[in-house]
């Protein structure tokens, strides 16, 4: 009896050890990649299902999605990088901050795509500056994923109440836009005509529409020229006339809450809001989108997202493969269809995407027509926009010190500075920082 029990115990111990050993071996063979991600909301289940798809195709790879709220994203990612524990992959709004720590995936492109790097860069580069990094450093530091464009949403019910017809192809001029705002407020259709997101990037679209720019080609900040002052004066006047709620820019209230609650008839934001607006229950009114108004220039800015790997990863090939898979035509098409996103892929932009939803197709048609008619011609950003936000030391200064621009815009709105004084302060500060940057790189 004891002998039998002893044998059973022995067998149990051996089997347990074997099981643990097998688990250890299987985990040891499995590659785990950390993917830092920020969500716009409805895209989270989509990326999770794409990751599940990828893992099914590659059972030896596990991808840990680290979902970080957008408001904390830059800080969290910066802490991880500074602390020496960056993720393997990250979603980002720009390559510039990560240019010295991003993985160069150029060596992996030919074997994955069958194209030469030159061909692949040309076919893939949509709205973003991937070509810049390739041309200047011969490196492919990140892959453009999708692009959001600035968009002006409106409440169709409130427009009807005010007796206004929104344009669908030809944009309003600023004067026409302002008189529509006056009509909305005076008719009582909404408390405010417009709610405008509080970011320097969003405000800059007005700057370009007025024919302004942040930097000139000599690397001098010229935001305080006549066109810049015109843009800021126009913006400030909308607050003075009570067309825009002060709480968004002077306080800390999210702009969307005014549109969502019907307090503002128009919402100046971007196409990334489309998936959320399409979700049932987000808003209880009919909404639409119109071409961005124009002043001297028909300018429409885009806000691309990129996916990039980090040099410190232990698995550069696997990271590059995942990045290339995620941004390949069939997967990117799936992504854009489900989220109403604009692909940052040159070929896909030319071919167009059927979003499979008549409402979404008509919204995206207006936006893409606006983009094509605006100065953001496919793949060809105007030089001033590139210089201001995307490439070179000028873009580094803008992206590092943009809070000063926001602060001075707020000063102009609250009346503590005139628009000219506010932009003079920005120009002085940016030029000082440029001088510091040049001095420190000698």
């Amino acid at each position, binding site marked *: 009896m004891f002998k039998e029990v002893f044998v059973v115990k022995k067998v149990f111990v051996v089997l347990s050890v074997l099981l643990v050993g097998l688990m250890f071996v299987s985990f040891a063979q499995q590659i785990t990649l950390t993917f830092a991600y920020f969500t716009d909301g409805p895209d989270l289940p989509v990326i999770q299902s794409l990751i599940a798809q990828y893992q099914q195709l590659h059972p030896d790879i596990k991808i840990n999605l680290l979902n970080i709220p957008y408001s904390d994203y830059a*800080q969290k990612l*910066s802490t991880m990088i500074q602390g020496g524990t960056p993720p393997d992959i990250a979603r980002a709004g720009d390559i510039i901050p990560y240019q010295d720590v991003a993985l160069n995936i150029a060596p992996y492109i030919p074997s994955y795509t069958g194209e030469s790097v030159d061909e692949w860069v040309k076919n893939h580069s949509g709205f973003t500056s991937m070509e810049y990094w390739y041309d200047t450093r011969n490196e492919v530091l990140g892959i453009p994923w999708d692009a959001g464009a600035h968009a002006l949403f409106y409440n169709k019910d409130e427009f009807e109440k005010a007796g206004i017809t929104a344009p669908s192809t030809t944009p309003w001029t600023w004067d026409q836009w302002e008189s529509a705002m006056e009509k909305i407020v005076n008719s009582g259709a909404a408390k405010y005509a417009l709610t405008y997101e509080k970011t320097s990037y969003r405000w800059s679209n007005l700057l370009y529409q007025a024919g302004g720019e942040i930097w000139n080609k000599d690397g001098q900040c010229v935001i305080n020229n006549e066109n810049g002052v015109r843009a800021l004066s126009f913006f400030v006047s909308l607050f003075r006339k009570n067309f825009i709620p*002060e709480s968004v820019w*002077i306080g800390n209230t999210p702009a969307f809450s005014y549109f969502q609650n019907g307090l503002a008839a128009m919402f100046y934001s971007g196409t990334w809001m489309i998936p959320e607006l399409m979700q049932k229950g987000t808003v209880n009114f009919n909404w639409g989108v119109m071409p961005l108004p124009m002043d001297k220039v028909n300018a429409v800015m885009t806000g691309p997202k990129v996916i990039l790997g980090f040099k410190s990863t232990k698995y550069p090939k696997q990271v590059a493969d995942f990045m290339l898979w995620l941004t390949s035509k069939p997967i990117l098409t799936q992504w854009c269809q489900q989220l109403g996103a604009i692909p940052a892929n040159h070929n896909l932009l030319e071919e167009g995407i059927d979003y499979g939803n008549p409402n979404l197709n008509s919204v995206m048609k207006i936006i893409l027509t606006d983009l094509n008619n605006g100065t953001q011609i496919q793949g060809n950003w105007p030089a001033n926009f590139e210089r201001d936000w995307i490439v070179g030391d000028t873009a580094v200064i803008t992206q*590092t010190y943009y809070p000063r621009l926001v602060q001075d815009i*707020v000063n102009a709105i609250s009346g503590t500075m005139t628009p000219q004084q506010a932009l003079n302060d920005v120009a002085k500060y940016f030029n000082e920082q440029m001088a510091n940057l040049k001095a420190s790189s000698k």
Partner: protein
Amino acid sequence: MKTKRFIPYIFIAPAFSIFLIFIIYPGILGFIISMYRTPYSFGPSVFIGLGNYFSIFKTTGFLEALLRTFLFSLLVVPTIYFSSLGLALLMTSPSVKAKSVLRVFFFLPSVLSGVITALIWDWMLNYDFGFLNNLFTILGMRNIPFLLNPMDAFLSLVLIMAWAVSGFFMVIFIAGIQSIPQELYEAAEIDGASTFEKFAFITLPMLKPTSILVIILSTIQSMQLFDIPFVLTGGGPGETTTFAVEKVYNTAFINLNMGLASAMSFVLFVIFLVIGLTQFKVSREGQFLA
């Protein structure tokens, strides 16, 4: 015998290790980082010695944020002191009923996180969505820009902070009041002292060590304030509610200038050290005088 001498150190070793790893080591590392210029793109840092310390007061607006923080402390500390002392006197008064329930009620705000406090008060004070302004609209009154006007926003933060922490200091004062010997009050009553005279000549002097503690702690707390203005006002309007710690945060995580932010942190550390040492000296002197 030799082994016995080491035993106390073995007992304090775990706590000291935690202190070393999480306080001393990061502090030293922070000071080292403060002597480097860290580029925007996480590239190699450059040693610049005390360059960041010279920059702090020249170009960054840190000095303005520091002065703003001092002014905030100057307003909020007396507010906290008098409101928490007032609450403590109320809670130790024999004529007040249901004291235990009221104490919990007044203490509750101090257990809320700063973020929740900020969200609650945004819901109360927001110009368009706030409870108070909606009530004013119903009553036919004009809305008040509590958080949009620089002065109103600043004063709102003073009152909100006082609301958030007075409950905690009320408890400290209650302990102090309850430790005052009753014989002193009895003797004063026999001598015909009024309520005010008992308060001014017995309660207040006997609460001196407690008062010093409350003033020092509330000063440090007010100077370290970050979460409430960050969530409620975003440091605005403009920069009128951007205090020193938020300035450090913006420098580190918005401007991605870790070196400069570390230098600012070190300056704040020195200021808090001076305040802490002052408290230690004053409370030690108070012990000898008592």
